[in-house]
C-alpha cells in the first residue's frame, strides 16, 4: 500500500510569494488532516477534511491559507502571500472512516520563507 505522499519535500520562497503544497492520502482514506510544526514549537493542527468537505478548520492561522480537496482525493494547501512566520514543516495525514482511526503521516513539506 502506498503511503501518504507530499510534494514538494522542500520549498524555498521569498516573502510575498505564493506557494502551494500538495498531499495525496492513502487511497480510500476519507479523512485528511493538515498539521504544521513551526521551529521550536509543537506540531499543531490546521484543518480536517472528510472527503471533499471541511470538517474542522479551526487551526488555520489566517485567511492567507487556503486548503482544498476537490473530488475528495488529493488536497492542496496554498499560502498567499507567504510571510516569514509561515516557515516550518507542513504535515499531511490520512485515516479511514470509522471510529477514531490512527492517522498515517506523510514525510512533510519543509517550507522556508526568506
Amino acid at each position, binding site marked *: 500500500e502506498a*503511503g*501518504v505522499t507530499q510534494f514538494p519535500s522542500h520549498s524555498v520562497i521569498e516573502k510575498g510569494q505564493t506557494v502551494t503544497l500538495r498531499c495525496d492520502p492513502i487511497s480510500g482514506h476519507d*479523512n485528511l*488532516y493538515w*498539521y504544521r510544526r513551526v521551529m521550536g*514549537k*509543537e*506540531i*499543531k*493542527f490546521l484543518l*480536517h477534511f472528510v472527503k471533499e468537505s471541511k*470538517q*474542522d478548520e*479551526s*487551526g488555520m492561522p489566517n485567511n492567507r491559507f487556503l486548503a482544498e480537496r476537490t473530488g475528495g482525493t488529493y488536497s492542496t494547501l496554498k499560502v498567499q502571500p507567504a510571510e516569514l512566520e509561515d516557515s516550518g514543516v507542513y*504535515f499531511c*495525514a490520512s*485515516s479511514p472512516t470509522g471510529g*477514531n*482511526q*490512527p*492517522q*498515517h*503521516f*506523510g*514525510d*512533510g513539506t519543509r517550507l522556508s520563507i526568506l
Partner: protein
Amino acid sequence: AQRVTQPEKLLSVFKGAPVELKCNYSYSGSPELFWYVQYSRQRLQLLLRHISRESIKGFTADLNKGETSFHLKKPFAQEEDSAMYYCALSYPGGTSYGKLTFGQGTILTVHP
C-alpha cells in the same frame, strides 16, 4: 482547552537501562491517547495507542486518568530506540474528532 505536556525535551540513557518518557494531558472528556515516533530520516508513525493496551517494540504505556498521564516505558532501551517521541491526544467524537493535539516531543538518545 486540551493540552499535552512532555516535560523533557531531551532524554539520554545507556543501552539496557530502563526508560520512561513522561506525558501529561489536560482534557475535560475521555480522550484517546497516542504515542507517535519519528526515527531519523523517517516519517512520523504511530507507536501505540492506549485503547490497544499492547506492547510495541517493547514499549508500553498506561493511561492513568487520576494523574492524567500517559507515560511511555521500556524496561531495557536499545540503540535503535533513539528517536523523537510525541505524545498526542484526540477527541473520540464530535466535530473535532480525530484532530490530534501534540506535546512538544522528547528526543530520546540511547548510548551504547
